[in-house]
């Protein structure tokens, strides 16, 4: 495992996943991909030019990565936190909201219809609103983890690493919230009308017009980007410099994400056609 190799200089060796419920759930989500990938291979139906199963697959992958990442970061939660009743209830709520989102998105694919932006009936409109609340709830787990790790005096991590992990997790919530909120409040993820449908492979972001899924993606990966920067600072710089560099990286990343947000809102693609 590359992560195990990278964390080699850190104290507190232990299992890669320190949160068994989220680890099990993340692996279950990963396994569930077998079914949707097979469905994508068999189902001739398309939605907006792609297989109806592409969106559920993307969400399964994204949420599996999110949940498994939280399970890894959990090793730096304060001792005893994971045993508390409130924490366990909260994790159960987070898992429930993720399941509900996937059921909603997968259910829409099952019927060959839209999930997000679907206000075609009072039921679908209500569901869309409810799923917004659920999305905030599931994303709040990164905020809760980030604050708890920030306040934990006994992580055994260097200040730069601890800061980068905590800022990354808090940043995922703080940056995703306004960007995803804007994304949801507009009529669709494009800002502008694509003419040819040219898009990036895998990610699917438009190369012709603004696509708010791009800043959403970057905002949500703050929890990965900042710890990587912190790890680099920890490895390359003396302690004091490393902490400053981590803060600088956090500021630069935030500025970068907000810039991509502004560019997308202005109707411009992040990676234009040549």
């Amino acid at each position, binding site marked *: 495992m590359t992560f195990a190799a990278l964390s080699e200089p850190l104290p507190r060796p232990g299992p890669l996943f320190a949160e068994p419920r989220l680890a099990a759930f993340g692996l279950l989500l990963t396994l569930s991909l*077998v*079914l*949707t990938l*097979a*469905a994508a*291979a*068999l*189902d*001739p*139906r398309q939605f907006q030019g792609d297989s109806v*199963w592409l969106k559920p697959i993307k969400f399964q992958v994204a949420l599996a990565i999110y949940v498994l990442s939280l399970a890894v970061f959990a090793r730096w939660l304060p001792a005893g936190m994971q045993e508390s009743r409130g924490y366990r209830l909260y994790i159960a709520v987070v898992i429930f909201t993720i399941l509900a989102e996937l059921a909603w998105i997968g259910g829409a*694919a*099952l*019927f*060959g219809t839209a999930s997000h932006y679907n206000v075609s009936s009072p039921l679908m409109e209500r569901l869309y609103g409810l799923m917004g609340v659920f999305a905030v709830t599931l994303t709040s787990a990164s905020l809760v983890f980030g604050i708890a790790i920030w306040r934990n005096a006994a992580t055994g991590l260097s200040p730069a690493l601890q800061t980068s992990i905590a800022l990354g997790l808090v940043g995922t919530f703080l940056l995703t919230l306004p960007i995803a909120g804007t994304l949801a409040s507009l009529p669709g993820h494009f800002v502008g009308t694509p003419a040819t449908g040219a898009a990036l492979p895998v990610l699917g972001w438009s190369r012709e017009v603004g696509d708010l899924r791009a800043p959403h993606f970057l905002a949500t990966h703050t929890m990965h980007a900042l710890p990587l920067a912190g790890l680099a600072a920890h490895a390359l710089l003396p302690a004091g410099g490393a902490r400053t560099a981590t803060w600088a990286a956090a500021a630069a990343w935030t500025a970068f994400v907000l810039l991509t947000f502004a560019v997308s809102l202005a109707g411009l693609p992040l990676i234009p056609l040549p």
Partner: protein
Amino acid sequence: MSPESLFALANPLALLGWLALALSPLAPRLADLVAGLVLPLLLSVAYGALILAFWTSAPGGFGSLAEVQALFTDPGIALAGWLHYLAFDLFIGAWETRRARAEAIPHLLLLPCLALTFLFGPIGLLAFTALRATRRATTQTGVAP
């Protein structure tokens, strides 16, 4: 992939499993792994994918025989139904093979039960159950299931 090509792929796969069970005395663990787990799960994934792909557009339902017949007029759902047979019959065949081994039932006696399970699933299950019951009644050395 079309339902037709999946059908053409699934039948030889299931046959491979039955062949493994028929020859299981040669490699019991391999036969059990292939016929009792890998192939039924593979067929189950294909079944699940077909349901995801064709369920909501298929006619009919479960409420009456006529509805069930209407359901199976959809090629995707008919294929799903066929894969359901293949997967579950093979799973039962693998269970019969494990039971027979555990209860020291001669393989030659198991073979006709496997053939019946392969062709007419439930009749094979009846035959195997009858075989176990008669052996237990006559030898009194049977092992509880």
